[in-house]
């Protein structure tokens, strides 16, 4: 297809390839159970993985899921299997009781400082996978002593004790309150339904209060139907339920919004509840916020950004992928898909051994013009430009510099530069050009076609 317009395309320069050795290694760090999926996914492809986690034993990584595992066989099966696999895999170097405290570098050459037993160890790795657990916080409106968040509530259960076949069911009447502040997370609906159905089997009366029940997870519509048939009561509210002490327990009052009018609302009061479980807001883990800042990865509200559709499961920084709550809070089985897809993404960057990169499709700094103003460093979206020392050959004198000549100038990392040209268009000294598309091309076109 061609129009009648004069068109200037980006020149089709022949790529000039530079061969790069990237060792087949990666560091997987975090305390979210999906680190197991990431470590296993990468290790089974022949990548040497260092797994950094804060627990004493590998089994402890799945501890947050033990309550849920009572009720959900699939979660139980998948995560138990992974724990086995990772424990037995000799090519995964497991560093327990450790935290990743500092990290810097680029794709192919990250330096991770790991604190273990009060000692700092330095690990070099070409790729990083991060998956932290967020901090669950019960929303203001429900922060009373009577209310528990999901994680605290499920923490009382542990499938290893044999479940309620062995231990008596501690709850008689329970209400789950979902969608309190965040409405775009599906895990609370799935957890409440699966765990609620399980409790129901052991004699609890279960209520689920939500704005919208999230059935958009595999099999949920059927389970939703079955749960209702089994007697789990599901209500939809518009205004937040009010909570009081009442009767022999807690009382929740709200209006049921499913297909009734605002004028004749159906007031519902649930009395004598012995447990109210509320969907927490998942706040970003502190380590995660710290690491993202150190890596200069854009973040939004402490979670990895940008929320750009093109960045699904990865970051703007080449060689760093994320999963778990660092990406977005998800139900454990969904989170596993996300984590595996992130591992595949990382595999592409650390799996091949040697890479051919095009050193034409990048920007280049003319060090003799650079005023080391750091503009480019600040704006490069991929953290691909740093001020470095150049050799004697490029000595220049900064206008008005107090200390005479310096040997510093900006330098583009060709390994990670995507050739977007943002640095070139903002450099006040006009010291940067895109190698494959210099300004002259644009100016020539404008002069040749407009005049």
């Amino acid at each position: 297809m061609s129009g009648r317009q004069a068109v200037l395309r980006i020149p089709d320069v022949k790529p000039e390839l530079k061969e790069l050795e990237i060792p087949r290694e990666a560091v997987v760090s975090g305390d979210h159970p999906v680190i197991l999926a990431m470590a296993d996914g990468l290790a089974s492809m022949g990548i040497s993985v260092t797994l950094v986690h804060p627990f004493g034993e590998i089994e402890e990584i799945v501890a947050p899921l033990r309550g849920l595992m009572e009720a959900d066989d699939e979660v139980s099966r998948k995560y138990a299997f992974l724990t086995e696999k990772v424990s037995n895999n000799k090519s995964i170097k497991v560093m327990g009781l450790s935290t990743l405290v500092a990290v810097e570098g680029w794709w192919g050459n990250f330096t991770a400082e790991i604190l273990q037993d009060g000692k700092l160890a330095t690990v070099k790795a070409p790729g990083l996978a991060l998956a932290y657990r967020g901090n669950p916080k019960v929303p203001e409106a429900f922060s009373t002593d009577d209310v528990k968040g999901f994680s605290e509530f499920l923490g009382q259960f542990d499938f290893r004790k044999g479940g309620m076949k062995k231990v008596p069911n501690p709850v008689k009447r329970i209400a789950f309150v979902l969608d309190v502040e965040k409405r775009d997370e599906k895990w609370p609906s799935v957890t409440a339904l699966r765990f609620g159905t399980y409790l129901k089997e052991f004699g609890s009366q279960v209520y689920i209060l939500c704005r919208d029940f999230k059935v958009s997870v595999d099999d949920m519509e059927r389970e939703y139907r079955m749960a209702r048939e089994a007697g789990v009561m599901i209500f939809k509210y518009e205004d937040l339920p009010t909570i009081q002490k009442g009767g022999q327990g807690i009382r929740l009052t709200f209006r049921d919004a499913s297909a009734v009018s605002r004028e004749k609302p159906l007031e519902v009061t649930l009395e004598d509840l012995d447990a109210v479980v509320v969907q927490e807001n998942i706040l970003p883990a502190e380590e995660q916020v710290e690491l993202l800042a150190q890596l200069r990865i854009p973040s939004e509200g402490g979670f990895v950004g940008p929320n750009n559709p093109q960045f699904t499961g990865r970051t703007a920084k080449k060689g760093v992928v994320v999963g778990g709550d660092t990406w977005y809070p998800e139900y454990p089985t969904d989170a596993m898909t996300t984590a595996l897809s992130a591992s595949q993404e990382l595999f592409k960057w650390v799996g091949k051994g040697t890479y051919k990169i095009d050193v034409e499709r990048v920007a280049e700094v003319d060090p003799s013009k650079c005023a080391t103003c750091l503009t480019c460093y600040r704006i490069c979206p991929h953290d691909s430009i740093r001020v470095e020392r150049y050799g004697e050959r490029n000595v220049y004198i900064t206008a008005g510099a107090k200390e005479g000549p310096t040997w510093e100038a900006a330098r583009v990392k060709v390994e990670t530069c995507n050739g977007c040209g943002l640095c070139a268009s903002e450099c006040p000294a006009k010291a940067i050009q895109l190698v494959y598309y210099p300004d002259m091309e644009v100016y020539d076109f404008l002069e040749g076609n407009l005049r």
Partner: protein
Amino acid sequence: MSDAHVIVVGGGIAGIACADELAQAGLKVTLIEKEQEIGGWAADYCCKATDQCNRCFVCVSDKEREGVRATSGITLVTGAQVSGIEKNDSDYAVKISRAAGAEEFHGDAVILATGFTPFDARKKGEYGYGRYADVLTGLDLERMLRERGNAFKPSNGMPPKSVAFIQCVGSRDDSIGHLYCSKACCAYALRMARVIRHQNPESEIFFFYMDIQPAGRLFDETLKACEEDPNFHFIRAIPSKIYQYTGKPGLMMRVLNTETGDLEEQFFDMVVLSIGMEPREENAVVWESAGLRPSDEGFLDPGSAEEGIFLAGAVSGPKDIERSIMDARQTVLRTLQYLEDKS
């Protein structure tokens, strides 16, 4: 492993994403597509941005498609319908039929990414799809916005003022045996409704639904924007019938008045049926030849796949584009593991 050859069946976004990942990992890939062009359904969808991107993922699919077309490591076979898969030891023979005759491709592993069929709205006769010009499906509206850029009433070409969206058409509906949620339709409907509102400040949206399903991160932003819009009305009830009075323009529905609780007759300029997804029945012979069985929802059960055969995308159950891409990547990881173990 790197000289292994993988055959990807189906050139929708899931198949495209698989082919792209495999080629980047250095493998030989053949991508077989029934239609003349790759892209699947998503190639017909529109951008759903208002003042800013609303994360519908359609452009991601567009870009992936162009990327795969330009990748030299991928052999594209289009206009070729796969009719069966045969396994002999570790060789997989994928049989295709095309205009030029039958052919066979051989590979070390097969990924099936044959997707879904949009629900045929005619099966819900009460909505009069096909009878009333201004009753559209979500797919029709996607195509209209992609090709023409703005929404208009097919009957007279004018921009619609009051638009009703009816959710879950063909999904979450036991009467037609579809006891599943299609997962993408709440999101696409809300986003397209916002586009209509953005284009025409006088328009009004009536959104009939059961439960709104989020899609991906930051969906709350979309939802809040709709709720704060005074011309956007959410009604938690699904209308049962659309009708017209002879000689009068417009579409009528009996709708619940949420203020009074009464059923009232209301008039709309245009109705959009948010259709969901169905399994592709025409591929039943292919499934059988590969030993694949349907899951409880009627899509394919990944657990039933024979060794060396993998599923990606909506073929194993409804997924939106983002989830299809993630599923494709996960499938590629599994495929690579399988090939690694074998070599």
